[in-house]
C-alpha cells in the first residue's frame, strides 16, 4: 500500500444536492432529490442530463436558455439574481428547482419588474 487511493472524478468536483418538483420526479426514478456534481448550475444540468437523459429539455430550451417558468434557487436565492446558469456553486450546495406560481400579473417586490405570467391566448 502506498497510501494513495483511486478517486471517482466526481468526488473531487463540487457536490450538489438537487431537489426536484413532483412533476419532474418520474424523470429521475421517482426521487425527490438527487446528488449531482458540477462547478456551475449549467454544469449540474449537464451532469443530470448525462445521468437522466431527457431531463435537460424539461428545464431548458434547445438553445440552452432556461425555460421562463422554471425557477432554480441556490441556497434560497434565485439564480436570476446571481449569475443565472453560470452561477458558481460552493461545495455541498443545495439547488431547488420549482415551477412558477402563475395565474396573474404581478410586480416583483425585489426589483420592481413584472414577472412572467402564463399566456392564455392560443388562437
Amino acid at each position, binding site marked *: 500500500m502506498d497510501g494513495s487511493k483511486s478517486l471517482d472524478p466526481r468526488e473531487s468536483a463540487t457536490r450538489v444536492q438537487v431537489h426536484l418538483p413532483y*412533476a419532474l420526479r418520474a424523470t429521475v426514478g421517482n426521487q425527490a432529490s438527487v446528488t449531482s456534481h458540477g462547478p456551475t448550475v449549467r454544469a449540474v444540468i449537464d451532469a443530470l442530463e448525462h445521468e437522466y437523459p431527457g431531463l435537460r429539455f424539461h428545464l431548458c430550451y434547445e*438553445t440552452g436558455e432556461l425555460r421562463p417558468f422554471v425557477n432554480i434557487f441556490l441556497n434560497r436565492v434565485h439564480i436570476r439574481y446571481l449569475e443565472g446558469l453560470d452561477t458558481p456553486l460552493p461545495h455541498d450546495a443545495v439547488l431547488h428547482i420549482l415551477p412558477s406560481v402563475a395565474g396573474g400579473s404581478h410586480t416583483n417586490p425585489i426589483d420592481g419588474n413584472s414577472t412572467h405570467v402564463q399566456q392564455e391566448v392560443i388562437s
Partner: protein
Amino acid sequence: MNAHGTYPKGTTLVLVGTKRGLFLLSSPDRKTWEVNNTALRGNRIFFATLDQRQGSQRIFAADNGDFFGTFLRYSDDFVQTWQDPEQGIQFSPESGEKLINIWTIEPGRPDEPGTVYAGIDPASLWVSTDGGQHWSINTGLANHPTRSQWNPGAGGLCLHTIVADPSNSDRMWVGISAVGCMRSDDGGQSWVFANKNTRADFQPDKYPEFGQCIHRFIQHPSQPDVLYQQNHCGIYKSLNAGDDWIDIQHELPSDFGFPIALDVHNPDTVFVIVENESRNNVNDQFTVYRTSNGGESWRSMTEGLPSGHGVRLGVLRHGMCSDTLDPCGVYVGTNTGQVFASRDRGETWNLIADFLPSVYSVQAFVIE
C-alpha cells in the same frame, strides 16, 4: 372501455384536448356517452389524434406543458399510459430555434402507414416515418426564402393544419398563422403560397402573397382539388388546390371564425362557427352554420344549442370535427368546457360533456 383496455369495434371515440388534460368520450350508439379522464392530466393538450392505419390504435397527443416543456406523446392503450418518442420534436442547439407549442399531429396517407406529421410553433413541419419514434424537420419549409418575413398571429407563429393529399403522394398543404396556406407539389421539397383572393384586412395590402391569418382548412374527400377554409377574414373555397379562393361567406353574420368540418358522405355539406370580435357567438344564440351546397348558402343549426343573455361560447380552430358515420356526427368543444354533439348532420344537438377545462380540440373516430 372494456376490461382489456380497448373499445369495441364501432365505438365512437372523441378525443378532447383541454387546458388541463386529455379526455376520452366514448359511445356505442352516439346517444349515451361516457367521459373518461386519462393519464395525460394537468397539462395543456392542444390536440390529439388516433392512428388506426394497419391495425394500429395509437393515440398521439400534443402535450404543451405550462412549465417543463412541450412534448409529443403517444399511447397504445387509450392513454392509460403514455410513452415518449426516442427522438422527439426538438431543434438542434445550433439552429437557435426553440420549440414553443405543438399544434397538430396528423397520421399520413393510408399508403404510408409509418408516416406521421406534426405542426408546431415556431412554424415548421415535422415528419416521422417510423410511427412517431423519430422526428425530423421538413427542411424545404424551414428554409423557405421568405421565412424571415413570417409573422405570428395571436397564438404564435404556428403551423396548425396539415393536409397530405391521399390522391397524390407529392402534394400536401399546410396552414400557418399568420402566413397563410402553403402547398408542396414535390413531396415537401419546396413550397409555394396558396392565398390568392384571401383577405388580410389587418395588412396595408389586403391581398398579399402571404401574411394571411388562416385559421383552419379541410380537403374535399372525393374532389382533391377542392378545399374549404376558415380565415381571420372570411370563409373560402378553392376549386383548384389553392391556386385561388372564392369567398363563400354570403349571409354568415361574421367573417371571423376558427373551425371548419365536413360530412364525408355528403362533402358539399360543410359546418362552420363564426364569432364576433370578442370571440363568442355573434348574438345570444350559440350557432353552428351548415351549407349543403358547397358554400352557396348557409343555414343556422341551433336545435339543442344554448341561448340566452349570458351565453358566450367560443370555439377554437380545432374545436369542431365530424365523424365518418352516416348520417354524419358533428362535435363542438367550447372554451367554457362543454362538448356538444349532433348525430344527424347538425339538425339537433346534445350536450355530451360539461364542466371540462377549456376545450382546445375535439377529434372523433369510429373504432375499427
